[in-house]
């Protein structure tokens, strides 16, 4: 193995900590910046120096290449490294990685970034190998120092010991020497059966600082001589500034400058309050010639019309839509899904400091490589001149990861225009809710049919939706009129339906779209799972039994979660207690499997009242079961709130009609159902948990509602669709 070694072994002192700073083999660099298959991830060499720092005080700091915005990545990554390092949980720390794609690429993406519920999936081997390699270096150092055999040394809960001589030590004492020991590129990893930390409910590593107000988010960053900025965006998507009268803004005490931006006007001031007052005082005239002025009602009509023709073929099985001709009974349904804001609790914010030779950003950077690329363009700098410090983010749900990095570019433009030191740039909640990058609206038209035995034998689904990837750095994902992110969950569905077709119309729309927690499955799962229930009802088939017989043979994990959820709910049909009904829906999402069953009654507001949710998930090896349960609970609550109450509507002339939490309604404490989560034991490599809990809840509730009332819900949110 020594033949694989390259230059390494120097020490750097950072504060009181000693850094194991091993120069990575060029091999690792070359492999890191392209997408890897799961098999390649398993084979990639260890890189402990990029990911671990061992302090003289015995602390082990994990460098997280993934942003922590609630999903538990810091905890999960630290557990992976600590497991193989045989560290004690109390000595683990985590900090965010710098923006350096050659070291910190998401192996699933081929760039530095977080998304697609991939953090654990792409780090499972990488972080364990880092831990294992560092452990072997510590052991080698101890063996040399104590003059004993490596194999006689034991490492347990952060203590290195040699039984025969009675010697023992923490990690810190050997950090210096360990850095000079040979680096094993392919260290032995533990048999998962022997895991001591992985698979346990360790407390979140950020739980304490997030329960005391000490956690530092972008909005909390403080720099010397920092000024504050706020922004006025055009009232309509695509409008541009025609004329600006900033006299009233400039007259406000504390306002320092106004800055014309690609999209709107920034106001820089000494205080946040002055910046906000400055924005309110701006008199702007907008050029509407390129603006999107349609209302969402007009858009829905255009989309609905489009779904009457087949669109681009994303998948055809058997006879496709023609298979409907051979069925004995058919159903046709049109579904409408609204624009949805993400509305993370922390509105977009950043601190920027642009100097002549370098620039620094403190922000919740989700797609770091994209952010950096756009920043570099705005500033006219080289990537090496720009540092992005990734902060804790107060949620994202997809909002922080925009393909064109529009927010990072806006921050860079503000920082460059000021040019006199650091600026804290914050969006108001209204900037956020009216600012677009919504989950795109869509219309689905479904036609399906059953044979004389009640079997579902034909399925035709046509989707009209915009692509938010087309024309961006992710344009490559759009081919032959098909954007796979728009049809995931419909195309390739895990049911054996002999005649099957999913068509797609990519619509033009000036209202900007983006990833939104679970992306395509946030709408496709609803259409698929409720329409399937309608076909089952037509044939007198039980929704659980019908799904079990329709799931493809190879999808055993999907069948397992459905059976587990049915067991948990004691399923014997859709009938519940008096006045209540049960509903079910399942999804395969980001390579994880989730089944959800709900118990629903008619609420006082005539909307569905969800009493109980049973959720079964298979996400491979469960790294931290309690974090997984939390993600299922949160995903269910987030999606239930969206399905019940949330929509962005565009009024006549193109203005979004919601601007804050008063009208963009979020789920509240009293509306939260009881949730029971069961994790299917698995030895498969870990897959995502941040998103897969989201898709099934809304269709499960709609299915229960139809069982209860006989009425289908085909328009979201339910507050609109129940009445429709």
């Amino acid at each position: 193995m020594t033949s694989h070694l390259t230059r390494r072994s120097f020490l750097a002192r950072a504060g009181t900590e000693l850094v194991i700073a091993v120069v990575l083999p060029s091999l690792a660099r070359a492999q890191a910046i392209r997408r890897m298959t799961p098999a390649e991830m398993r084979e990639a060499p260890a890189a402990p120096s990029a990911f671990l720092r061992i302090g003289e005080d015995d602390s082990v700091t994990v460098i997280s290449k993934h942003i922590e915005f609630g999903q538990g990545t810091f905890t999960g990554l630290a557990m992976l490294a600590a497991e193989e390092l045989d560290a004690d949980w109390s000595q683990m720390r985590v900090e965010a990685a710098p923006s350096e794609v050659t070291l910190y690429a998401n192996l699933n993406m081929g760039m530095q970034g977080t998304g697609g519920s991939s953090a654990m999936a792409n780090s499972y081997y990488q972080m364990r190998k880092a831990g294992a390699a560092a452990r072997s270096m510590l052991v080698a150092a101890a063996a040399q120092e104590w003059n004993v055999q490596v194999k006689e040394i034991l490492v347990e809960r952060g203590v290195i010991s040699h039984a025969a001589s009675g010697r023992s030590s923490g990690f810190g004492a050997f950090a210096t020497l360990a850095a000079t020991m040979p680096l094993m590129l392919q260290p032995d990893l533990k048999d998962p059966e022997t895991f001591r930390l992985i698979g346990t409910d360790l407390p979140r590593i950020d739980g304490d600082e997030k329960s005391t107000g000490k956690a530092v988010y972008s909005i909390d960053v403080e720099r010397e001589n920092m000024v504050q900025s706020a922004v006025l965006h055009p009232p309509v998507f695509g409008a541009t500034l025609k004329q600006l009268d900033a006299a009233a803004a400039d007259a406000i005490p504390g306002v320092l400058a106004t800055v014309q931006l690609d999209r709107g006007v920034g106001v820089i001031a000494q205080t946040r309050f002055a910046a906000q007052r400055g924005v309110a005082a701006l008199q702007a005239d907008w050029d509407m010639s390129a603006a999107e002025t349609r209302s969402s009602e007009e858009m829905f009509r255009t989309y609905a019309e489009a779904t009457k023709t087949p669109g681009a073929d994303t998948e055809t099985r058997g006879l496709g839509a023609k298979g409907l001709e051979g069925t004995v009974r058919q159903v046709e349904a049109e579904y409408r899904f609204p624009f949805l804001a993400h509305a993370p609790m922390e509105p977009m914010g950043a601190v920027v400091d642009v100097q002549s030779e370098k620039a620094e950003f403190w922000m919740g950077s989700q797609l770091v490589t994209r952010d950096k690329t756009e920043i570099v363009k705005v500033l006219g700098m080289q990537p090496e001149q720009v540092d992005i410090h990734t902060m804790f983010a107060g949620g994202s749900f997809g909002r922080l990861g925009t393909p064109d990095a529009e927010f990072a570019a806006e921050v860079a433009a503000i920082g460059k225009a000021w040019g006199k030191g650091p600026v804290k740039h914050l969006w108001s909640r209204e900037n956020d809710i009216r600012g677009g990058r919504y989950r795109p609206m869509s219309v689905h038209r479904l036609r399906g049919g059953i044979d004389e035995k009640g079997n579902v034998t034909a399925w035709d689904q046509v989707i009209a939706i915009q692509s938010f990837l087309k024309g961006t750095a992710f344009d490559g994902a759009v081919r032959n009129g098909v954007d796979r992110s728009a049809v995931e969950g419909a195309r390739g569905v895990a049911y054996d339906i002999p005649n099957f077709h999913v068509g797609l119309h990519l619509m033009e729309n000036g209202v900007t779209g983006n990833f939104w927690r679970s992306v395509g499955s946030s709408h496709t799962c609803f259409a698929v799972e409720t329409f399937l229930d309608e076909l089952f009802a037509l044939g007198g088939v039980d929704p659980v039994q019908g799904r079990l017989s329709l799931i493809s043979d190879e999808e055993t994990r999907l069948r397992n979660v459905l059976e587990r959820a049915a067991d948990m709910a004691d399923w014997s049909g859709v009938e519940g207690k008096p006045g209540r009904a049960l509903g079910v829906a399942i999804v395969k999402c980001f390579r994880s499997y989730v089944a959800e069953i709900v118990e629903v009654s008619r609420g006082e507001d005539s909307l569905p009242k969800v009493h109980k949710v049973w959720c079964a998930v298979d996400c491979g090896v469960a790294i931290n079961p309690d974090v997984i349960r939390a993600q299922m609970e949160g995903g269910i609550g987030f999606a239930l709130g969206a399905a019940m109450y949330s929509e962005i509507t565009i009024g006549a002339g193109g203005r979004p009609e919601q601007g804050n939490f008063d009208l963009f309604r979020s789920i509240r404490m009293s509306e939260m159902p009881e949730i029971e989560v069961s994790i299917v034991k698995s030895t498969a490599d870990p897959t995502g948990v941040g998103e897969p809990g989201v898709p099934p809840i809304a269709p499960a509730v709609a299915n229960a509602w139809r069982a209860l009332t006989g009425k289908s819900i085909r328009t979201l949110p339910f507050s609109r669709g129940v009445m429709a």
Partner: protein
Amino acid sequence: MTIEFELNGKAVTYSGDPDTPLLWALRDDFGLKGTKYGCGVAQCGACTVHVDGMNRRACVAPVSSMEGRSVTSIEGLTGAVAEAVQGAWVALNVPQCGYCQSGQIMSAIGLLGLIEDPSDADIDAAMAGNICRCVTYGRIRSAILQAAQKVKA
């Protein structure tokens, strides 16, 4: 014009724009960053603080209205109730992104100050103004109940 009030047990003086919301005075003038901006219109509760022991939304309270009052932010919490609530928050792994949790914790402590042994309906009512977009409500409820038990014991 200066405004004098008590902040986390200490006398402070504010001499900036008196119309400034307490939220920004706390954060930018007094360096207390635990209180968060979420909506600016008292719709989300992320900025909840205690004024004379009662829950208040700092984003809509001008600092001028604090004259002579006693303000407590998350940084100034003391006592058995606060300790029990924050302990339960950690023990039950309540926070996800964590951004709303200062406000949630302040509201929960405010609730337990008024009702020692809250029912589910009490919790629903007291916490209705605190939004959590990660939707940690189930654990928040459990943590409040656990803290109430601990304080009683």
